[in-house]
């Protein structure tokens, strides 16, 4: 039995957000992933981000495909509806859900197998469609549930736990997302909560397709010393962090001091602001070519470029393209949707 609910009792003095909710109110059932799995840290970051943003949990829809990562939506936000669909097909299910109700926040959780192999086509087309969602890949370079086979994001230089070489080049999902026109592309590491939480907040605030590739070590099958998706390796090679992002909610005052010339200030549709504190890099994340270059040059050095890699704050989303009504389609009354018998008479007349 792998469904374990958590006890509901909690400390009376837990901090509460503007909705009067505690962090516990954003939790899900007990994780059944391996102890130390990076995915659980990402889950914790999603809970933290939503709590801080005062998101009403029931206005969130959690969607996923199949795999260890796709189980994760069970482990956060019990008050949200979730949909654990079929392998690699989360993007299409989310597309339909989003057309039906544009007012919900869609958080998709997928893995590197689910997105970079079986679901690569659906991923690409969700990007093309400018689907308004946050798409998180919990990327560990292997298939966990089927015991450690290579996935398509595993680096060529990175052998398996048993020492088998990986003969294939990796698919870099961030580069792919940028090339396909995703408006928000970031990479992070499950072990860097300070970087991850504001990135998730920014992704949720972003109106359009927000993609987050989070390297998330598989402690059981891909955390050996020769793996490039291990905690050790990513910590050691994440020095090339492109930037650190602070997420500032709409109407909130900016309270952090930044050194002159080290920040970029980007405003999103909902009025929230992203204060980017550039670290090593000089690349402007509004420049897609520069972002691609930064990923590639870092990768060539064996480093992992993390942070907000690319953003287009003005992009149209799917509903703009489809010109759908401002109200959710699932809330339209039948009186507006069914033309009735009078209109049918006119149609019959034309067909006579």
């Amino acid at each position, binding site marked *: *039995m*792998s*469904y374990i*609910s958590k006890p509901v009792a909690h400390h009376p003095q837990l901090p509460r957000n503007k909705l009067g909710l505690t962090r516990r109110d954003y939790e899900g*059932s007990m994780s059944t992933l391996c102890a130390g799995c990076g995915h659980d840290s990402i889950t914790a970051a999603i809970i933290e981000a939503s709590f801080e943003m005062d998101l*009403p*949990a*029931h*206005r969130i*829809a*959690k969607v996923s495909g199949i795999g260890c990562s796709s189980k994760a*939506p*069970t482990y956060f936000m*019990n*008050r*949200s*509806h*979730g*949909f*654990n*669909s*079929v392998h690699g*097909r989360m*993007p*299409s*299910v*989310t*597309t*339909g*859900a*989003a*057309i*039906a*109700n544009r*007012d*919900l926040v869609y958080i998709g959780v997928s893995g590197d197998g689910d997105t970079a192999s079986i679901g690569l*086509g*659906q991923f690409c*087309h969700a990007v093309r*469609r400018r689907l308004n969602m946050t798409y998180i890949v919990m990327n560990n370079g292997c298939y966990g549930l089927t015991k450690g086979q290579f996935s398509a994001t595993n680096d060529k230089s990175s052998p398996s736990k048993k020492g088998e070489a990986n003969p294939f080049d990796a698919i870099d999902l961030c580069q792919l997302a940028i090339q396909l026109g995703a408006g928000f592309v970031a990479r992070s590491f499950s072990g860097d909560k300070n970087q991850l939480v504001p990135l998730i907040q920014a992704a949720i605030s972003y109106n359009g397709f927000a993609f987050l590739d989070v390297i998330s070590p598989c402690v059981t099958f891909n955390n050996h010393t020769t793996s490039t998706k291990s905690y050790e390796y990513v910590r050691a090679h994440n020095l090339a962090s492109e930037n650190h992002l602070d997420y500032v909610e709409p109407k909130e005052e900016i309270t952090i001091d930044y050194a002159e010339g080290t920040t970029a200030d980007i405003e999103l549709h909902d009025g929230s602001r992203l204060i980017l504190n550039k670290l090593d890099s000089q690349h402007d994340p509004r420049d897609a070519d520069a972002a691609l270059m930064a990923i590639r040059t870092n990768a060539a050095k064996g480093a992992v470029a993390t942070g907000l890699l690319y953003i287009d704050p003005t992009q149209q989303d799917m509903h703009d393209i*489809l*010109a*759908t*009504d401002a109200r959710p*389609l*699932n809330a*339209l009354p*039948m009186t*507006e*949707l*069914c*033309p*009735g*018998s009078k*209109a*049918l008479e006119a*149609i*019959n007349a034309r*067909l*006579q």
Partner: protein
Amino acid sequence: MSGINDFVVKFATVNGSGSASANGIFAKTLFRMGIPVSPKNIFPSNIQGLPTWYEVRVSEAGYTARREGIDLMVAMNPQSYPQDVAEIVPGGWLLYDSTLPRIWPRSDITVLGIPIAEMCAKKWNDPRQRQLFKNMVYVGALTALLDIDLKVLEGAIGDQLKGKEKLVSANMEAVALGRDFASKTFQCPLPIHVRHATGAKGKILVSGNDAAGLGAIYAGATVCAWYPITPSTSLAEAYEKYAKRLRVAKDGRRLYGIVQAEDELAAIGIAIGGGWNGARSFTATSGPGISLMSEFLGLAYFAEVPVVLFNIQRGGPSTGMPTRTQQSDITICAYASHGDTKHVLLFPKDPTECFSMGAEAFDLAERLQTPVMVMSDLDIGMNDWMTDAFSWDDSKAHDRGKVLDAETLEKFAELKGKDWGRYQDIDGDGIPYRTLPGTHPTKGAFFTRGTSHDENARYTEDGVIHARVIDRIRRKHETAATIVPKPEIGIRDKGGKTGLIYFGATTPAVREALDLLERDGIHVNAMRIKAFPFTREVASFCAMHDRVFVVEQNRDAQMRALLMTEANVPGTKLIPALNYDGMPMTAAFVRGAVLKELKPAQVAAE
């Protein structure tokens, strides 16, 4: 059989030459003269250059099935001359473009040569006009040969060319050219010709795909996801056409969302996502698409998500005959996906039912929280059928099924005496109550999954719970068998022991065959199946008869197998009558199948 208002004309042309609209105008004109017509487009999987045909059966008696034996062949394509000439009945006519005169191998037909290309070359300078107007020249010749009402023809041309009025007079000039030549050259009209009639009065001429797209509009469907595949494409296009007309708000915003998906998997995924979120959602596809959508259909079955799928069946297996018709997806649709799955199917018989069942499918899908497939086919979907006008009862509310709003969720235990759980069978009909995302801040959230789950939607690997849940879903399908459309039963021989089962596009052929058989002295009771799971009338019809013909358009007698498995009808009494050459079924075929069994001596003599 042939005579006034009773004959078959066939046009043999080249794909992409503009003949389709001329042929359509021809059929529409006869229809508007009040004469029952049934046009059938027999086309290649090709855009330009290959042979294509258009048959029009004219039948004052109202028989609209395809009929073999061509009375008048309009042969405009030298590529297909040999087979076209062979199809003409003895005593029939051949109209051809005699710009290059030919000697024809048959002395039992009358050849009507018209130098069409030469006439067009003299009349028009523009090569495109020379080509296109050739079609209207032969239509013009037919107005004289068949005594067609010119005024009605002009009206039909005007409707076809709405907004391009200048072209109407140009087309009428081409018509006059052909008409004058025929009047002067041949003895007009031919013994087969038309006259005004009343059989088509009050009817409409429309394709099933057009009707089904409209049905989805009337059902209130707002999410349409599809991937182009013949012969279903025009259904999604029809939905869009009507949505643009009927579903745009005053500010120009659309009350619908259409996605041309990247493949069939995504198309059904989008429709399921929309259904999960409380919007009426559908997709349209054909055989290969069903194969691709199967995994998702299993998810929607097991997670109990409403979705409507229009399957416009074509010739299989594999890519098969994409432009020919069949009823060969019954087995795959009834049981699509791995594991124990079973789906609700509807079998419309014509475009009128594509409209009404197309709309009803959404009610059933939401009532039963499961996929519902509307089993149309290429013949119904893409051909124009003379059919009853659409009707809609404004007083009948759409059935949105058991969906809880915030208020009902609050009071659920009070109202029902039990706590809510997504998959709890509260009412004993196997149908649980569902909630939509975003409904209530603290109640009603659950995790939809394709993995095994308990009555509260929690993951389980407990075999007892798993069996309990899938047994409950089976009970839901037993409920389905009480609410899907009942079969239509026609008793011609009270107490008689010979029955015949049919469904879908074969309906006109079966009805005509039953009339023909009466003349042979054979009275057969018939039942038209409209839905699966079978309502109890289906089994009792079979029980009432000693032998039951099952007429279908596939090789493996798929409906017969379904009757044996699902209605426990002994196979020994079910006699298959199968046609699977991809052509719409004829009455002669059905009659022959019955006679072969009942009066083999007569068949041998014929």
